[in-house]
């Protein structure tokens, strides 16, 4: 009986979402009075023993470079084998893009109940009940898992990373790696930027910005804050911005700590992707813009006047 946490990585680096998953899994294990271990498929540049700081006592690794790129079929087979070998009863993933691909496959192979999009630790007072997001952030559901082995995929940014003292014991798993059927022929990464799904701060622009040439101030504000940039669908549809920046019902759903919406009306389909943000700031020249109803802070004003002044104020703050 133990908790096994899947560790996601790319380009030799463990993803922040995985530190959240490790912290979540470790907290769950201590709540249940069992041990927590991490599972890493492939190789990374991090000293694996140091992951003990997130509360896990062991890290299992399948040390094989062919695993550094996602193949959900291969991953889920190895994860299933690892669960069986280690006797884990709980499997935790980040519900990031890799998790969305892998967790359901692993759950089905294990015939385990799955909660994807969990936002909190389970309630163990009556069975095993996990709170998750439903209706695109407009509500929560409490899901009771009925199976012996259980799988939870925790939403990015829903659980705060917790660190302490401790070293994990690193153990190699001896599992045959099946041949991958999905061949990766090219990757197109947005270099040097904070990935939107992992970002704690996001600056986003809408059609109110009038044209792609006006995104300079959005990027400058984002860079100053260490934020990622996003946009409304209306903006991605006319190709002012790349579509991977589009957030909302049909785009990416994000839950940063701070979401700054500039020149975005706040249509319900846009809100569906951002309403889980902890703090929402809206800058819009129309006081009737629906976004103000979902906002914590706002300025009714012209973005072309307000944003440059904000940039100056942030520069001053950073300098002080």
């Amino acid at each position: 009986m133990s908790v096994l946490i899947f560790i996601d990585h790319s380009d030799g680096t463990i993803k922040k979402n995985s530190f959240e998953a490790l912290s979540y899994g470790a907290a769950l294990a201590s709540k249940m009075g069992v041990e927590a271990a991490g599972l890493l498929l492939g190789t990374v540049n991090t000293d694996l023993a140091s992951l003990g700081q997130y509360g896990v006592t062991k890290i299992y690794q399948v040390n094989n470079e062919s695993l550094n790129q996602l193949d959900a079929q291969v991953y889920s087979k190895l994860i299933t084998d690892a669960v069986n070998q280690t006797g884990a009863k709980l499997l935790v993933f980040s519900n990031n893009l890799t998790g969305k691909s892998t967790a359901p496959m692993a759950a089905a192979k294990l015939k385990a109940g799955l909660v994807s999009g969990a936002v909190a630790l389970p309630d163990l007072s009556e069975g095993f009940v996990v709170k998750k997001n439903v209706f695109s952030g407009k509500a929560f559901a409490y899901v009771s898992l009925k199976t012996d082995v259980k799988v939870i995929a925790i939403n990015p940014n829903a659980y705060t990373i917790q660190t302490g003292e401790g070293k994990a014991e690193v153990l190699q798993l001896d599992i045959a790696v099946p041949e991958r059927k999905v061949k990766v022929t090219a990757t197109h990464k947005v270099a040097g930027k904070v990935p939107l799904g992992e970002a704690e701060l996001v600056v986003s622009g809408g059609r109110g910005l009038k044209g792609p040439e006006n995104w300079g101030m959005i990027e400058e504000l984002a860079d100053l804050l260490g934020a990622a940039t996003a946009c409304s669908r209306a903006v991605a549809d006319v190709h002012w911005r790349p579509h991977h920046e589009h957030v909302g019902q049909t785009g990416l759903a994000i839950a940063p700590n701070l979401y700054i919406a500039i020149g975005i009306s706040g249509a319900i389909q846009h809100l569906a992707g951002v309403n889980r943000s902890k703090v929402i700031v809206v800058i819009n020249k129309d006081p009737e813009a629906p976004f103000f109803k979902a906002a914590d802070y706002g300025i009714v004003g012209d973005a072309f006047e307000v944003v440059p002044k904000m940039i100056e104020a942030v520069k001053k703050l950073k300098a002080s």
Partner: protein
Amino acid sequence: MKILVCISKTPDTTAKIAFTDNNTKFVQEGVQWIINPYDEWYALVRAIEIKEKDPSAVIHLVTVGGADTEPIIRKALALGGDEAFRVNKDPQDSFDVAAQIAAIASQNGYDLILTGKETIDYNNSSTGGMVAAILDLPYISLATKLDLAGNTATLNREIEGGEETVEVNLPIVVSCQKGMAEARIPNMRGIMAARTKPLKVVEPVANEVKAEVVRYELPPAKAGVKLVSADHPEELVRLLHEEAKMI
């Protein structure tokens, strides 16, 4: 080329979300039901485009649901499916949906099984992966592009911080999202034709409940927006720093 497109029914994106019976039931009154946007705009339309290039292709649709899902299936047929299966069951959880779809798929043998990226009500994003696992097929999730050449599919899929291009031999399971195709609306001919297209009702295979929603909850209402004068954006920056402690 045999394609199976998984179609689910969801409340319209603007539907009011409310619960009743001690927060155990979604209030359906006044809710307009639609084909889940990802299933319609991306999975189904891409299948139709493939068939337009290769008229020998066959598109089957499957939905797991009660008789109330039939208008949705008819609309999907009007857009361009050839025939549809309705597995007669209100699904209990994602695994149940996947088990039913996998049963249909193993009887008919498809080259391509397409799902949407997620349903906009439960946001599970799970069905496609579970179908792939049950059938032991490769799964390409969150695809933004799908091209076929003979037995090989080339896809773009979203990964953390970007996209990657992958190649894989059929049969495969794919979850589809924006980029895959452009939304269409059904035309009159399609709507007429849909009336006579076969819609087969099949009985479900047995399945044990693995996950069950016990209740719902609405998020606490926001306290209301704190407005700052447009003349003093520096005040907003101060509040974000000192009060919200965000920057």
